[in-house]
């Protein structure tokens, strides 16, 4: 067992003396930059009923093996950094409690459909590039900064907000893309995350970029390669329903909504 800097262990330890329960965590380890070896390392960590998978991983890093590679930041399901496969299902480590997994052993692996950087951290370039491709911002000729009157606002009605509000909760964690069967087969597929964002901006009546965006997604590896497996919506931790966004977008392309 590696000893680590005492200050770090003091700060990060969530081990409470009263704890009587523990969990075995199996962490998939690999470092493709060095070699192709993949293995699972097992650790036993005490838990409380509020302990999350991320808490366990940080406990392992603090007390047992500080070399475990994991990406995280906010610890409150808002930065989208800590996506991983938890007992086979994509989820946020900071938003998944050990108690809800109902299992003495928890297996964590990097998300599918992304190249592994090291251990649990994956490279998310593909998702970010596709996200940029659909122009995730309000497009229009005029500006909110008006030369004569100073700054003005593009007003938005509550009715219009209703049309896209759930899609604006996306934190770009990439779990939807990792759950998508087309993503695993078609390495050029645009993916549910970007498609849901294309819908979010097209449905916004301040936006005038509908045709530009539809053109981007209406190609041979675009929206039509979704076959409505629906796994994206199953795993989204923020209640976004990318599968529905994709069907709504199809409505524009099939001419049944405008």
């Amino acid at each position: 067992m590696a000893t680590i800097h005492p200050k770090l262990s003091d700060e990060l330890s969530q081990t409470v003396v009263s704890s009587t329960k523990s969990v075995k965590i199996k962490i998939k380890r690999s470092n493709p930059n060095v070699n192709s070896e993949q293995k699972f390392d097992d650790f036993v960590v005490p838990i409380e009923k509020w302990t999350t998978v991320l808490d366990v991983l940080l406990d392992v890093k603090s007390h047992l093996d500080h070399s475990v590679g994991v990406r995280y930041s906010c610890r409150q399901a808002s930065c989208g950094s800590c996506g991983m496969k938890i007992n086979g299902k994509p989820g946020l480590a900071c938003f998944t409690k050990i108690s809800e997994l109902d299992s003495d052993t928890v297996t964590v692996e990097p998300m599918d459909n992304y190249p592994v950087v090291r251990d649990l951290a994956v490279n998310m370039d593909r998702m970010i590039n596709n996200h940029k491709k659909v122009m995730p911002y309000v497009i229009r000729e005029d500006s909110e900064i008006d030369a004569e009157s100073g700054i003005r606002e593009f007003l938005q009605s509550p009715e219009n907000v209703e049309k896209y509000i759930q899609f604006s909760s996306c934190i770009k964690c990439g779990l939807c893309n990792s759950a998508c069967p087309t993503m695993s087969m078609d390495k050029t597929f645009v993916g549910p995350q970007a498609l849901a964002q294309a819908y979010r901006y097209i449905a916004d009546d301040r936006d005038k970029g509908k045709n530009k965006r539809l053109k981007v997604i209406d190609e041979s590896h675009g929206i039509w390669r979704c076959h409505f497996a629906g796994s994206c919506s199953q795993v989204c931790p923020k209640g976004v329903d990318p599968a529905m966004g994709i069907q709504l977008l199809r409505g524009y392309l099939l001419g049944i909504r405008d």
Partner: protein
Amino acid sequence: MMVLRESIIMKIHYGTALGALFLTVIHIMMRLTQDFHESLEYENVIANYESVGYAILLGLLLILISVHGFNGLRVILLEMNQGPTYEKLVTIGCLAGMAALIAYGSRTIIMTNMGML
């Protein structure tokens, strides 16, 4: 290789699927006018091809299913592998297969009606 916009291709895909479904229902109902084994007897097959209305229905069904089926195959193949050369080959191959199947099926109907069978 972008010959048509993907949305137009998919409209054709769904349209041909629904059309084929409709014509297949009529086709099966026509088969119910006689016993199953009689449908496959030589004289009956030739008689079907010689009845103009039914021959047109079969010809249309052939076109709809060839277009739908080969486009479906194109979609499956595009998802299995990617790359410009591969995708070009898939598109050309599927268009060629579609044309060949339509030509071969129509040939039987036309030859029958020209008294060549």
